[in-house]
């Protein structure tokens, strides 16, 4: 039977199942196949809040969304074209996101009376007409898998467990994905259990063949590779990119990396990743609490290391006093905040941009700290190197604001070579700097950067004491002198204000837009995708994205004032808007949603269009 092949320019697939169904793994593998095929892509996993919610219930549903295309794309997509639902809970939890006409591939075996009851279905939705507006493919995935594995010497439970590989095989056929890497992956993953490895490969192949031979699927799809620029690519999540960025920062600064960290969602993966790279001389220290994590990092920085601490909002709250100590002792330190929904514990697995004001102002005293926010998962790499550059050059703690959406989302990343990375090394101070040629003044500043010398223990002749008490300008001795304090407060502020950050770039294809849409952090993708939509529809909109939130780019005031209207979508109640209004007296139009989810491009396109229309 020859099947029809239909061309598509992009597809959004959502894999959904019970948290025990292996949906994240399935999604990851499909992503890897898609990446190696050469499509552009963007992913968004959605984890249940509980580690092991009761099987088959709505809170136990775990999903993974993947958007891939033959052109460059910016988001994991608003609404899926295809939903793979491994059980009734997965169907129920995701159906409302599914536009009419989308495909549903449901595992019919799991739609048992008991499972249906668990989520409140009185009748089986696969059998009544309730799904008539979608293209339903009811497939007995579990029993087909078990049947395909009959010959294998494995338990029924292990056979059933391979159903996600069957589903992956089926989807791989449906979208013409290359399969070799997945087979290799399964073989490596289960290298110690050859029977499981073989049966999973068999399940994967059976799913693929099922698609090819059964009449249930009459069409397969082709999505051509995207024209990406030449180079070596890999798919990377924000947390991974951030961790690799820190390794690169250590290499490029010639400083040993010391990570002090306490496990917290959604930042722990950075600790896990860095713990693997001891070959680079990286010391990872799982501390007794958040305060010890940053304290140890600062202690290591005093000793000459690139000190880093990684956390999420609640951890930043606890670290505040130590960050203040780093501000006043003027030591390099990187504080990574992978933001999540707050306040308090909030929703740990959900994303938000609500820590901006805390990062900027959440300490006692005048305590200025540079703040950088990456825009996309792969940008976390560059942002980490940039944070280190600033921390080392200016001897200051730097806040790096990622978030849950960037941390777990992924996209193809054109891997830079080491030769392309900046050299961010700054030598330690090794000689006395006093006018007499013998004394050392730990707070005598560099005329250009206002940074103080970084002389580390072990350097003869430069023994000195630093601390949290106000220091006399130059000598660093304890000082309660009023005018000295005023001077030091202003010097510390001037140092941060003077940091060299690149100008804000504006994207305005025609150059005559009167409305600017501005963003920061992880809203880049949805905002840029929305701007494209608006432009496709004939609307004129300029777009700019802030990566440096302290200090702001020098030209930002000028940019803001050169548009009639400035729209600023944020996943908070208007934190950046508050700052820009205060600093530049510009009447920012805020658009705020705090739902724990990223914006959708369609939603933002509507908002932008409204602002244009109100001109």
């Amino acid at each position: 039977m020859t099947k029809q092949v239909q061309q598509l320019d992009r597809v959004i697939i959502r894999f959904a199942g019970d948290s025990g169904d292996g949906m994240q793994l399935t999604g990851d593998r499909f992503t890897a196949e898609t990446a190696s095929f050469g499509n552009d892509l963007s992913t968004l996993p959605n984890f249940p809040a509980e580690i092991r919610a009761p099987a088959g219930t709505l809170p136990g549903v775990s999903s993974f969304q993947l958007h891939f295309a033959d052109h460059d794309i910016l988001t994991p997509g608003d609404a899926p074209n295809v939903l793979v639902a491994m059980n009734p809970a997965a169907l129920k939890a995701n159906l409302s996101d599914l536009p009419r006409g989308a495909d549903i591939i449901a595992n019919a075996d799991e739609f048992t009376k008991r499972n249906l009851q668990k989520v409140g279905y009185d009748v089986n939705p696969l059998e009544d007409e309730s799904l008539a507006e979608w293209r339903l493919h009811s497939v007995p995935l579990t029993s087909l898998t078990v049947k395909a594995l009959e010959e294998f010497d494995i338990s029924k439970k292990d056979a059933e467990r391979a159903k996600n590989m069957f589903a992956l095989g089926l989807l791989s056929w449906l979208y013409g994905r290359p399969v070799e890497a997945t087979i290799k992956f399964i073989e490596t993953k289960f290298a110690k259990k050859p029977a499981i490895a073989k049966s999973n490969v068999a399940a994967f192949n059976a799913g693929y063949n099922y698609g090819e031979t059964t009449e249930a699927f009459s069409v397969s799809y082709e999505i051509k590779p995207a024209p990406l620029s030449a180079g070596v690519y890999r798919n990377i999540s924000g947390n991974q990119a951030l961790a690799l960025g820190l390794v690169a920062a250590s290499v490029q600064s010639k400083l040993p990396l010391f990570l002090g960290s306490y496990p917290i969602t959604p930042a722990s993966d950075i600790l896990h990743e860095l713990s693997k790279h001891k070959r680079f001389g990286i010391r990872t220290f799982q501390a007794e609490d958040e305060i010890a994590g940053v304290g140890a990092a600062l202690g290591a920085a005093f000793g000459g290391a690139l000190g880093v601490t990684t956390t999420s909002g609640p951890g930043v709250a606890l670290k505040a006093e130590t960050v203040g100590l780093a501000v006043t002792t003027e030591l390099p330190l990187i504080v990574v905040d992978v933001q999540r929904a707050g306040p308090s514990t909030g929703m740990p697995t959900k994303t938000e941009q609500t820590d901006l004001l805390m990062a900027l102002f959440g300490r006692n005293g005048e305590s200025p700290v540079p703040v950088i926010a990456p825009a996309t998962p792969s940008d976390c790499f560059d942002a980490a190197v940039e944070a280190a550059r600033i921390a080392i050059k200016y001897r200051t703690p730097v806040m790096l604001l990622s978030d849950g959406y960037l941390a777990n989302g992924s996209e193809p990343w054109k891997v830079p070579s080491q030769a392309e990375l900046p050299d961010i090394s700054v030598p330690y101070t090794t000689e006395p700097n006093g006018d007499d040629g013998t004394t050392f003044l730990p707070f005598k500043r560099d005329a250009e950067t206002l940074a103080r010398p970084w002389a580390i223990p072990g350097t003869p002749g430069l023994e000195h004491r630093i601390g949290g008490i106000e220091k006399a300008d130059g000598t660093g001795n304890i000082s309660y002198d009023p005018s000295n304090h005023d001077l030091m407060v202003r010097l510390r502020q001037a140092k941060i204000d003077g940091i060299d950050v690149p100008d804000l770039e504006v994207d305005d294809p025609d150059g005559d837009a009167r409305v600017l849409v501005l963003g920061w952090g992880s809203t880049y993708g949805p905002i840029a995708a929305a701007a494209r939509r608006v432009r496709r529809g004939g609307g004129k909109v300029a777009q700019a994205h802030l990566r440096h939130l302290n200090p702001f780019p020098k030209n930002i005031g000028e940019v803001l004032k050169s548009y009639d209207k400035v729209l600023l979508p944020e996943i908070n109640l208007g934190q950046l808007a508050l700052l820009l209004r205060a600093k530049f007296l510009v009447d920012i139009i805020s658009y705020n949603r705090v739902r724990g989810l990223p914006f959708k491009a369609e939603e933002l396109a509507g908002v932008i269009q409204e602002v244009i229309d109100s001109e």
Partner: protein
Amino acid sequence: MSESLNGKGLALVPKAEGKQTLKDFKSDQEVRWCPGCGDYAILAAVQSFMPELGIKRENTVFVSGIGCSSRFPYYMNTYGFHSIHGRAPAIATGLAASRPDLSVWVITGDGDALSIGGNHLIHALRRNVNLNILLFNNRIYGLTKGQYSPTSEVGKITKSTPMGSLDKPFNPISLAVGAEAGFVARTIDSDRKHLHSVLREAAAHRGTSLVEIYQNCNIFNDNAFEDLKDPEKRDVITLRLEHGQPIANATQAVRLAPTGGLEVVARDSISPEEILVHDVHNPDPSLAFALSRLDEPAFQHVPIGIFRSVDRPSYDHLMSEQLEMAVAQRGPGDLDELLQGGDTWKIN
């Protein structure tokens, strides 16, 4: 390899070239404790002791938290870090774990170490980072002007407890032994010779050493340790702990109690063989713990000296070993190889 460093707390710290003197370790800063404060005696004792170690001054670091005693680093002509309340063990952990070539000293007080910083103290002790923690115990809050502390006796009348404090105090030695400390000792500000002997052993211990120093705050808790200084009472109530020696003074002696603990009895009421012989290297911490409980009731019999000195690999060393092992197994890190690792694909 880790074992070879046992008892060599300073093995990785570079040696000083010339001879050092007390003067080398005095900074140019004016000392600003209250006149008569016990901190002066401890400072002088430490300054006069440091040359004896024969290590490079620039490889010596004093880290402190907040409190009267935490001003200490400013007065030492070494590297120093006066940090924030309670956090000195955490900061020192990062420093010592990443710089095994340093001799790192933590200066803290009873409030700093046992109240706000209690968590960091116990975790530093169990980890066994190569630190020397000097805990100045004056049983009061000095810098905040006289509130009761976690080592103040029950019923202490202070500004914040006009009708007497309600909470049972910590015994720092018991706490340290319970927190898996390898080296635990007690000494007193007024006895320089004893202080020196304890500091010597603490520095030689590779791992975290906790030294409780009874320190008089003559402003807010004067004479708290007077009985231990009074020439009449001193020798009667002090029990000097010396390795391999019976634990006894002229009138009192320690023996195993039928309850499983220890008890103090009149020396002449038992035969010499019954007196417990002190073994600082006993891997079982039970007796060290029992010794620490002899303080009760207060100042009837107070053990002074080294309670426990048991070697195990230090955290910083184990950490360095893992880094070396990673390099030995797979070679030093190569950034290009790392970045291009994982599933990559090429677009031409």
